[in-house]
């Protein structure tokens, strides 16, 4: 039996995702849902997303990887190395699995700019691996800015010719989890939803609505200052950060309510503008991250 939720039902994203994850954990315990296999590929990126996942709570990272899924491959976490590790990756192909990918796909020189291991004495490129695993995966999660749209790896001048996952798997449905890095809840919550209910509802860009539905600007505690035209001139000001270059008005995430690092704070809460890390085209399209020359009036500039 599930606990009744007394009115008024808490509809904050945090409460909703907490309900989803506790339900998922319960259903696994009762044998109602099966653990699924998970393959976590790291391609051309900085491993920032898997590090961000270590901040996860309810469920935490350890619980997720031990009790919710059977992790088949993760080059950062597994004990096996070299060809032994790639052997596990190849074995995973035989069964059903969810594929999570962080990092961009480097296309230059047929993928040679990103080699993730070697198989039968030959280098295995990220490009080959993701095509092979993507074709057979039951679900694909693109985790972080690089996997969703190229991100920092594809920033100008993009020497490795990096692209997002959808460019190499054009016919597959890919759940997009942009962010640099991804918030642990966005990944763990989406994974929990997959296990318990199947694919979450997404927007036209395939982002789960439960995390990416609302503009930061529409839920920003500093919005009243924006509406009155009262703008910060420097970083410590407590008013709207728009003139310093805030990208909250073009970025859709739940940062204002969810917050980061164990839900304690977020950029705008700490007086620094949103840099739009979860907007497609980040970082180039969101630059410059900070401008002090808009409000400051200097004579004889």
């Amino acid at each position, binding site marked *: 039996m599930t606990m009744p939720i007394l009115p008024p039902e808490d509809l904050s994203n945090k409460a909703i995702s907490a309900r989803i994850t506790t339900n998922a954990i319960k259903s696994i315990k009762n044998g109602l849902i099966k653990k699924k296999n998970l393959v976590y590929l790291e391609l051309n990126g900085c491993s920032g997303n898997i590090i961000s996942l270590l901040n996860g709570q309810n469920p935490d990272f350890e619980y997720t990887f031990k009790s919710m899924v059977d992790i088949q491959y993760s080059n950062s976490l597994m004990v096996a190395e070299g060809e032994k590790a790639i052997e596990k990756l190849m074995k995973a192909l035989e069964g059903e699995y969810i594929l999570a990918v962080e990092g961009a796909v480097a296309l230059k020189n047929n993928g040679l700019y990103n080699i993730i291991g070697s198989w039968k004495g030959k280098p295995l490129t990220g490009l080959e691996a993701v095509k092979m695993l993507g074709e057979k995966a039951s679900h694909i999660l693109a985790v972080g800015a690089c996997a969703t749209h190229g991100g920092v790896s594809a920033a100008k001048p993009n020497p490795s010719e990096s692209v997002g996952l959808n460019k190499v798997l054009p016919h597959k449905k890919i759940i997009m989890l942009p962010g640099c890095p991804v918030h642990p809840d966005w990944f763990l919550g989406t994974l929990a939803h997959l296990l318990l209910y199947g694919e979450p509802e997404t927007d036209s860009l395939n982002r789960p609505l439960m995390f990416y539905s609302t503009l930061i600007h529409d839920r920003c505690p500093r919005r009243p200052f924006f509406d009155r035209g009262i703008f910060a001139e420097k970083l410590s000001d407590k008013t709207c950060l728009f003139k310093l270059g805030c990208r909250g008005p073009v970025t859709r995430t739940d940062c204002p309510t969810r917050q980061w690092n164990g839900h304690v704070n977020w950029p705008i809460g700490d007086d620094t503008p949103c840099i739009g890390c979860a907007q497609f085209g980040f970082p180039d399209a*969101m630059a410059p991250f900070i401008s002090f020359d808009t409000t400051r009036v200097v004579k004889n500039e």
Partner: protein
Amino acid sequence: MQNIEMLRWQLNSLVTQVRQDIYTLSTVPQQPIAPQILQRLWDTTSTIHFISELLANQALHCYQPIPVNSRMIPVNNSPSNSTQISPITPIPNQSNSQLNGRNFTIGELATFDGKNGRPAYVAVNSTVYDVTNNRAWAAATHFGLLAGKEYSQEFATCHAGQQSILATLPVVGRLVS
């Protein structure tokens, strides 16, 4: 001090308003009026938040008065600086009648780059628009574009079929060659 009394009174009546709205929502949950009430709740809480921030700031700065209820904060209204055009605050339907007819050369347009307190203008199809306080143009930049330039091509490729965007922007003049 009188000012603070007034803010306090305003806060209390706003809180009463919120309570009333929440009560109404709880009694008639599925009424078509719910979205309006929710909108009013949102606005009221925003105002409460704003006033409490204002009070806190005043307390911190030993009652340095900040103008209350100022729908428009003039940035530069000193006569010595009369060549400067005050940035437009984000209030819709503001009239720009004096400026509406102004002609800009591409060189003149370039000076409205949003820097140093100047307004930010962009031109699309020979019309010059004010994006100074448009939410999508923070710090006078937008997806890699800088204010003060002509962007007919970019608008056509990035916002095809979104003429409504232009219709909502304040017009400040025309681009002439």
